[in-house]
C-alpha cells in the first residue's frame, strides 16, 4: 500500500512514517501543500493522510484537487481543527475518515484497515485467530460454526486486539478505543479490565485460556 503523508510538522510525519513502514506500508512525505499537490499529480497513492492546516495551502483546496484525480485514493483527514468535519461534508468533499489530533497510531491503522476492506475489498472482512472467526462487517464471532455472543464493547475490544495481535495493548489504548470519543473527567483502567475478564470467560469455553496474556502493569497481548 502506498501512502502519502501530508503534514507540515516534521516530527509528526517522522513518527507516522516510522510506524507505517513497520506495518509494511510504503510511505512518501510532503511537508508543504505545493509539494503535496505535485506528488498526487505524479504518483498514484492508495492512501493520503492529509493534515489540512498547511501554512502555504488551503487544505480544502488540496482535498478538492485529490477528489478531481482520475484515480481515487482513500483520504483520511488528520486535523486539529474543530468542527471541520461538518464543513467538509457540507462542501461535498467527503473524506473517507477523519481523525482528530492527537490520535493513536493504532487507531489510525485500525481505521486504515477498515477503509482497505471497505474500499478496495483487498482483505476479507473476516479475521481469524486460533479458529475463532471475527466478521467485522456482520459483527459476528464464531467458532467452528458456533456463534459466540459478545456485547458491543467486547466485540470492539476483540476486533481491536486482532488487528494489533503482535503488540502489547495498554489499558489506556484500549480505553481510548472504546471510550475515546466521550470526553470525560477521569480515566479508570478498571472498566477495561472488567470487559477483558468477561471476554476471557466467554472465549474460554471454546479455546484454551492462554489466548490472552496479561502484561503486568502494562496491558494485554494476544498469544499466537
Amino acid at each position: 500500500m502506498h501512502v502519502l503523508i501530508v503534514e507540515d510538522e516534521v516530527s509528526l510525519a517522522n513518527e507516522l512514517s516510522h510506524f507505517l513502514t513497520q506495518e509494511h506500508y510504503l510511505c512518501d512525505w510532503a511537508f508543504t501543500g505545493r509539494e503535496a499537490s505535485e506528488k498526487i499529480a505524479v504518483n498514484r497513492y492508495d492512501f493520503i493522510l492529509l493534515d489540512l492546516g498547511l501554512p502555504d495551502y488551503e487544505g480544502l483546496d488540496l482535498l478538492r484537487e485529490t477528489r478531481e484525480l482520475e484515480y481515487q485514493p482513500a483520504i483520511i483527514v488528520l486535523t486539529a481543527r474543530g468542527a471541520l468535519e461538518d464543513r467538509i461534508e457540507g462542501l461535498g468533499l467527503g473524506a473517507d475518515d477523519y481523525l482528530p489530533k492527537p490520535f493513536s497510531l493504532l487507531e489510525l491503522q485500525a481505521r486504515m484497515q477498515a477503509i482497505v476492506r471497505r474500499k478496495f475489498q483487498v482483505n476479507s472482512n473476516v479475521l481469524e485467530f486460533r479458529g475463532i472467526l471475527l466478521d467485522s462487517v456482520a459483527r459476528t464471532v464464531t467458532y467452528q460454526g458456533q456463534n459466540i455472543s459478545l456485547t458491543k464493547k467486547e466485540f470492539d475490544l476483540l476486533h481491536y486486539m486482532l488487528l494489533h495481535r503482535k503488540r502489547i495493548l495498554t489499558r489506556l489504548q484500549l480505553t481510548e478505543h472504546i471510550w475515546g470519543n466521550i470526553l470525560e473527567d477521569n480515566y479508570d483502567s478498571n472498566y477495561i479490565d472488567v470487559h477483558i475478564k468477561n471476554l476471557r470467560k466467554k472465549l474460554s469455553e471454546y479455546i484454551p485460556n492462554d489466548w490472552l496474556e496479561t502484561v503486568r502493569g502494562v496491558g494485554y497481548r494476544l498469544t499466537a
Partner: protein
Amino acid sequence: MRLQSKLILFSAATKVIILLVLVMVLPPLINRIALHSTDQRLLEKKEQVFDIIEVRGIESFLSDSEEEAYGSYNLLKEEFISMEPIDPSLINNRIENTLRKVENEIVEYRVLSLAFELHGETYLLEIGRSLDTIRETSNTLQRYAMYFLFSVVLLTVFMDLAFVKVLLRPLALIVRKLQRIAHPEAFKPSPLATNTSDFVYLNDTINNMMGQVQEAFRKEKDFIGNVSHELLTPVSILQNRLENLMATPDLPDEALLKLVESQKTLHRLKSIIQALLLISRIENEQYLKNEQVSLNTLVNDVVNEISDRAELRGVTITVSVPDDFVLPNANYSLLFTMLFNVVNNAIKYNKEGGSIQISGEVRAGKYELSVCDTGTGIAADQLPKIFSRFKRTHAPDSESHGLGLAIVQTVAKFHKIKLHVESELGKGTCFKFAFKKVNASLI
C-alpha cells in the same frame, strides 16, 4: 429605596417641617404685625387730632365747660377718642391694652395715651381701637396665609416629583440596561439621550468598562482556544512517539512500565486540552444545534453506555421518564457528553450498592430531568464551586482533571438549560436540568 423616592420624600419632609414651623410662628407674628399697624394708625390719628386742634382750637373738643371731658365713640365701639384736662403730675404717655366700660359694656382696647400742654393747661388725649377688631383682622390674615402656604407646599411637592422623575430618567435607563445584562457578552454599548453631564459621564464610563470586560473575556476565550489548539500538535507528536517506542523489540520491562506511565500522564494532558478546547468552542458557538434530541432516547443511550460501570460498582440505575421531551435545536453529542459526565460522577462518587434515579417529568409547566444519587454528597460551602474549572471538591484523584462539571455547565448553558444542584453530605446529590417551557405539541 430608590433615589427618586428618597429625593421626593426629602423634599416633602422639609416642606412639611417648614409648614409646621410657620404654623407655630405665624399667629404671634401676625398678631405683632397687627398690633404694630394699629399703633401706627393710632399715632396717625393723634396727628390728625393735633391738626384739628391747631386749626380749630381745643374749644372744638372742649367747647362748653373747661372741666368737661370730651369723648366720642363710633357706632360699633370699634374706636374711640377722648380728651380731658389732667393734673400735670399724672402724665404717663404710653400705648397699652386696657379695658374700658362703654355704655355698660366692657371692651378691650388698644389705647394711645398722650398728655399735651396748650395755653398753660395740660390735657390727656386718648385714642383707642377695639382689640376684637384687631384680632379679627389677624385671624383672617392667618387663615389665608395658611391656605396659601399649604397649596404652595402641595404644588411644589408635585412639581419636584415631576422634575425629579424627568431629571432621573437617564439614571433609570442605565439601571434598567444593567439589570438586563445576564453576561457581559450580552452588553451592547449605547449613547444616552440626556444633557445632564453626570449621567453622560456615568453612561460613558459604564460603556467603556463593559467594553474592557468584554475584551478581557474575548481575549481569555481566544487565548484558551489558541493555546489548547497549539498544544494539540506537540501532544500528538509525543503520543505517537511513545507508541512507536513501546513497539521497540526487546524493551526492558522497566522501560516499558515507564512508557506506560508516560502514556497515562500524556493522556491526562490531552484530556485537559480537549476539555478546554471543547468549552472554548462551545462558548465561541462553533457547534451546531441542528438536531432534534429526544430526552428519552438520550437517557437510554447514556445508560446503555454506562451501565457496565454501574454494575462494576454495584450501583443500580433506575430510569423513569414517563413524559418525553424533544429539544428542537440541539447537539446530540454535546448533550450526551453532558449527561454522561453527570451519571458517571453519580457512579464514581456513589457508595457500594447505592443507586441512581434518573427521572424526567413535567413540573410546573417546565420539563425537568434529574439525576439523583445516594453518594457521598457535596458540602454546602463547596456547592457553588463545583462548576469552576479545575476545582475538585471530592477527594484528590490523580486521574480526574476537574473539568467534567465545567463541561456539563457549558453544554447546559449552550442549550439554555437551567442547571441546579442539590446535595446533602452523606446522603447524595441531585443534578436537575430544567428545560424551557414545555411545548405541548412536542410531547
